């Protein structure tokens, strides 16, 4: 009897409190219909109370966001023209003084409470949401897999080599939530109907665990893109690529795209791996190297276990040995923050100008 009373009273109290919160939410969090004016030419009407990021995505306008609205990636910046509120402490770390002056804000932190007027760069309107089917999964190393997606709706994607898409995971096992994470496209832009992603398993990573362990060929997924400003800039300088692990993905797309376009630019790709077993797509790049006099592939292994004949040591050491002249170059780096920081530091020491160094950290 006592147990029953205990259970009932606790449930009753919890239900009462939940009811209070629901009522409070209904009345306090109800900001009515708000109008968002976009780039002064389009107006959308949304239900207030949600973040600007999710209000816009409901209207099929996708602002890049790698963290899914937690103010930890700082990608979802938009410019607020009218209806701005003071900057929140959660946004502070991601905004420079100049950006604050210009009204740049994180759209995930802005709650739509009143009519707003915002500016969104035109290229973001290319971003679409796709449904796709997994058509191929391949093991590349012990913790890296490649996934090929056949796009269903819409059927074609237009992107610049080096850009990324965001894929939405589905709940699995004990994970109830759905998260979206960003992965670079590794297939070339001329393959319009399929995209390939190279994903490294992150221990306890929500989305990578989903992709590695729960995604099967034939499964449907939703993704959005393309995002990002990591793509090859025009010019005729030599290009060097530096990548480690799954950072190879955008480079694969970029190299294939340049060769397909018949570019005459000289390209050198330094790929860093721990052991020989961590190198993948070796045949792909060796083949490109054999076919094209302008492309060189230099893999570097930091802890060779067998009889490795190539470069030994960190990838940056291989780059350092190579950079011994003074010609103009552009550099594209993709990999872990540690590798990228070391790479940038080396390139600057070797006299490269900062505006010729581009990178994608993850």
């Amino acid at each position: 009897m006592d147990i029953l009373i205990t259970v009932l009273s606790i449930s009753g109290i919890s239900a009462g409190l939940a009811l209070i919160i629901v009522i409070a939410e209904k009345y306090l969090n109800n900001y009515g219909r708000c109008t968002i004016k976009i780039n002064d030419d389009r107006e959308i009407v949304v239900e207030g109370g949600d973040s600007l990021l999710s209000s816009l995505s409901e209207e099929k306008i996708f602002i890049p966001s790698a963290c899914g609205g937690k103010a930890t990636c700082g990608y979802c910046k938009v410019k607020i023209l009218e209806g701005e509120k003071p900057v929140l402490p959660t946004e502070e770390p991601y905004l420079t003084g100049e950006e604050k002056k210009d009204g740049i804000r994180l759209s995930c932190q802005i709650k739509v409470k009143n009519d707003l007027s915002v500016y969104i760069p035109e290229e973001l309107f290319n971003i679409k949401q796709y449904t796709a089917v997994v058509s191929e999964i391949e093991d590349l190393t012990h913790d890296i897999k490649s996934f090929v997606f056949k796009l269903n709706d819409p059927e074609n994607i237009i992107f610049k080599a080096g850009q990324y898409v965001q894929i939405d995971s589905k709940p699995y096992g004990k994970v109830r939530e759905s998260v979206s994470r960003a992965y670079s496209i590794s297939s070339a832009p001329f393959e319009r109907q399929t995209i390939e992603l190279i994903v490294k398993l992150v221990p306890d990573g929500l989305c990578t665990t989903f992709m590695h362990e729960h995604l099967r060929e034939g499964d449907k997924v939703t993704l959005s893109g393309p995002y990002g400003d990591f793509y090859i800039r025009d010019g005729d300088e030599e290009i060097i690529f530096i990548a480690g692990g799954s950072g190879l993905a955008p480079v694969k797309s970029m190299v294939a795209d340049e060769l397909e376009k018949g570019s005459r630019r000289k390209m050198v790709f330094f790929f860093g791996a721990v052991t020989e077993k961590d190198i993948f797509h070796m045949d792909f790049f060796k083949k490109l190297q054999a076919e094209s006099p302008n492309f060189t592939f230099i893999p570097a292994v930091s802890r060779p276990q067998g009889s490795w004949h190539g470069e030994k040591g960190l990838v940056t050491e291989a780059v350092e040995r190579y950079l011994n002249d003074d010609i103009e170059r552009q550099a594209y780096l993709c990999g872990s923050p540690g590798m990228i920081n070391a790479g940038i530091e080396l390139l600057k020491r070797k006299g490269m100008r900062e505006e010729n160094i581009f990178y994608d950290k993850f």
Partner: protein
Amino acid sequence: MGESIYINPLVIFFASILTSNMVLANFLGMCSYISVSNEYKTASGLGKAVTFVMAVTTVMNFAVYKFIIIPLGLEYLRYIVFILVIAASVQVIEMVMDRYFEGLYIKLGIFLPLITVNCAILGISLFMVIREYDFIQALFFGLGSGLGFWLAISALAAIKEKMAKSKLPKGLEGPGITFIITGIIAMAFIGFSGIFQIQ
């Protein structure tokens, strides 16, 4: 504890700021006290938010205890019920602030979820029951303890800011020196115990 002696609410108020300070005398609420005390401005913001939430939740829990828990004979469930009430009221406070006190929300908003798990808040509600305070006493106790937390965390943050550039022995950096500072402040506060005491 004084069953029949009625303690003046004002005495409770000042004692909970100085001699029975939640942080310095009872060592409750240490997690946010240590982690959010690197900058005076943020520490002071957290202090204000804690003061506000403490005063509100003490009153709420007093009502819940008197009108729900005692009549139903559920005294042994007070821990759970108090936590639920604190969590729910913080949520509602957040929504009210966001709607009607926007300036305040911008300054204190990010601290509110943090406060839900501050043990000093639960501590106040439990002490209030153990010490058999009436409504006015509980109100002054909640408010005073909040101000006490604000005072303690602001003092620590101000000292830490002054010390930021000084050289410390490696092993004492971070929490180590924070505990030593806290200990010294606590000892200084014992000096007030000649004036009034409630514990």
